[in-house]
C-alpha cells in the first residue's frame, strides 16, 4: 500500500498515455496546432477530403478532422453534444432544424447537387429509364426516408407516379452507392456527384426532366465552438474559388440561391 513502485508508476503513466492517445488522437507536449472538427454529409466525402487537404496546406497550424455521415444523423449527434465546430448538410430542411434549435449560426449555401439513378457498370437489369425501376424483380436501393437523399428520392418517386419498391433503405448515400458498385442491386438513387466519384464502376440513368430533385448544401458554424475564427476561416475557404473548383470537378453545381 506504500504507493506505487517505479514499475507501477511507469505502467500507470503508459496507461494514461494510451487513454490520452485513444481519446484525442494526439497527446504529449502542448502543441500550437489547433483542431477543427467538421461534420459533413456523406455525399461530400470525397470533395471535403480534398478541401481538408487544401485548407491544411494554407493553414498548416490547423488540423481538420472530418466526420462523414447521414445529415440527419450528424445533426442528431450535434444535438447530443458532439464536439463539432462546423457542419455541412445535404439539404436545407435538416440544417434549418439545427438553426431553429439554436445549435448553429446562420448557414451559407455553398453547393448544389442533383438526384439521379446509378446502375452497375454492366447494367444487369437493362435499365434505360426511371420507369424500368418499377418492373417486377428489379432491385432498387435508396436512402432511409429521413436523410436528404431519401427525402429527394421519395419525392422523385412520388412525382413520377411509378410504383417503385426499394429492397433496402441504406443509412446514407454512400451505402446506396456501394450496393450499386458491388452489383448487389440493379439501381440506386444517388447524387450526380456520386456517379462522378464512382467513375467507370457505375453508369448514370438520368431522371426525366422535372423529376430530378435538386438539393442545396448549407454550411454553418456551430454555436459554442471553441475556435470560431478557425471555423469562419474554413467557411470562407469552402466559398473560395479554389474550393469551388474542387466542388465543380466533383460534379457539384454552384448554388442558385444566396443564403438559406
Amino acid at each position, binding site marked *: 500500500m506504500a504507493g506505487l513502485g517505479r514499475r507501477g508508476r511507469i505502467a500507470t503513466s503508459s496507461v494514461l498515455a494510451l487513454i490520452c492517445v485513444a481519446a484525442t488522437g494526439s497527446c504529449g507536449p502542448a502543441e500550437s496546432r489547433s483542431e477543427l472538427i467538421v461534420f459533413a454529409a456523406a455525399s461530400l466525402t470525397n470533395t471535403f477530403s480534398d478541401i481538408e487537404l487544401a485548407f491544411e496546406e494554407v493553414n498548416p497550424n490547423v488540423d481538420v478532422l472530418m466526420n462523414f455521415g447521414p445529415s440527419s444523423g450528424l445533426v442528431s449527434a450535434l444535438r447530443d453534444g458532439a464536439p463539432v465546430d462546423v457542419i455541412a448538410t445535404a439539404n436545407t430542411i435538416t440544417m434549418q432544424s439545427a438553426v431553429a434549435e439554436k445549435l448553429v449560426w446562420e448557414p451559407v449555401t455553398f453547393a448544389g447537387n442533383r438526384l439521379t439513378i446509378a446502375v452497375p457498370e454492366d447494367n444487369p437489369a437493362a435499365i434505360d429509364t426511371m420507369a424500368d425501376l418499377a418492373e417486377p424483380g428489379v432491385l432498387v436501393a435508396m436512402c432511409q426516408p429521413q436523410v436528404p437523399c431519401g427525402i429527394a428520392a421519395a419525392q422523385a418517386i412520388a412525382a413520377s407516379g411509378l410504383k417503385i419498391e426499394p429492397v433496402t433503405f441504406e443509412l446514407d448515400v454512400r451505402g446506396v452507392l456501394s450496393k450499386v458498385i458491388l452489383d448487389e*442491386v440493379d439501381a440506386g438513387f444517388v447524387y450526380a456527384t456520386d456517379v462522378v466519384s464512382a467513375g467507370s464502376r457505375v453508369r448514370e440513368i438520368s431522371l426525366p426532366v422535372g423529376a430530378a430533385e435538386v438539393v442545396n448544401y448549407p454550411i454553418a458554424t456551430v454555436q459554442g465552438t471553441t475556435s470560431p475564427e478557425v471555423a469562419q476561416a474554413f467557411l470562407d475557404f469552402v466559398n473560395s474559388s479554389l474550393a469551388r473548383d474542387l466542388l465543380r470537378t466533383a460534379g457539384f453545381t454552384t448554388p442558385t440561391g444566396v443564403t438559406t
Partner: protein
Amino acid sequence: MTTAATRSPRRSRRSKPPWVLAIPAIIALAFLLIPLAGLLMATPWTSVGELLIDPVTQQALRLSLATSLLAAGCALILGVPLAWVLARVQFPGRPLVRALVLLPLVLPPVVGGTALLTALGRRGIVGAPLESLFGITLPFTPAAVVIAETFVALPFLVLSVEGALRAMDTRYEEAAVTLGASRMRVFWRITVPLMAPAVVAGTTLAWARALGEFGATITFAGNFPGRTQTVPLAVYTLLETNREAAIALSVVLLAVCVLVLVILREQWLRPGALRS
C-alpha cells in the same frame, strides 16, 4: 497463532481490498452501469406500450424474434457436430481450424457482412452459381438476416460445447464402447446428456448474440422494415426520427439480455461451471 494461520487464506479474501484495486473496480462498475441507468431514466415509461405496438416496432420485434430463433437453431444443428469434431477428432491443422472457427467472435461484424456479400451476394463465389442454377438471391431477404446472425452467433455455441466436451470425463464413453455400444449410441446416450448444459448455455448465448446483430445484417441483408429491419437496425433508424421509440425498443432488448443472463447464471456464469 495456529488459528490465525489456518484462517488466514479465508480472512485475506474477506479483508478490505487495496485502494489500487478498489478504485478502478468502482470506476469499471460505474462505467458499465451508468449508460444503462441513463437508458432507463430516458425511457418514456408511460408510453412504452404505445410505442411498442407501433407497426414499425412490431415488425422489427417479430422479425428479430423469428430470425434470431432460426439463427440459434442453425447454430445448434451445425455447431454441435463441429464442436464434437474439434474436441474429439485428431487431424492436422486442428488448432488453425479452431482459430478460424472463432474468428467471427473478434471480427468486426461489418467486415463479416462484407465477407458474406462477397461470398453469397449475387456476384459472389457461391451466390453467383446459386442465382444462375436455382434463381436464388440471398441479399435483402430475411434469409440473409438469418445467415448474417448465424455467422456471428455460431462461434459462441462451438466455444461453449467444445469446452465442455474437452473437459468431459471420457471414461463413461469408453466404458460404453467396451460394453459393445455403437458410436452413435454412445453419442446419443452418453455424450449428449453430459454436454446438454453446455449446449443449452451455448445456444442461449448464440441466440442473444443473434438478437443483437447489427453490422453484418445491415451490410449483407440491407435495411427494409418488415423484411430485414431487425430491432437493432430499427433502433438505429428510429434514433433520428422517433427517439422515444428507439429507447423503448432498446429497453426491450435490455430486458431480454437480463433475462438471458438470469437463465444462464447457473449454467455458465458460475465460476468453474465449464470445468464441472
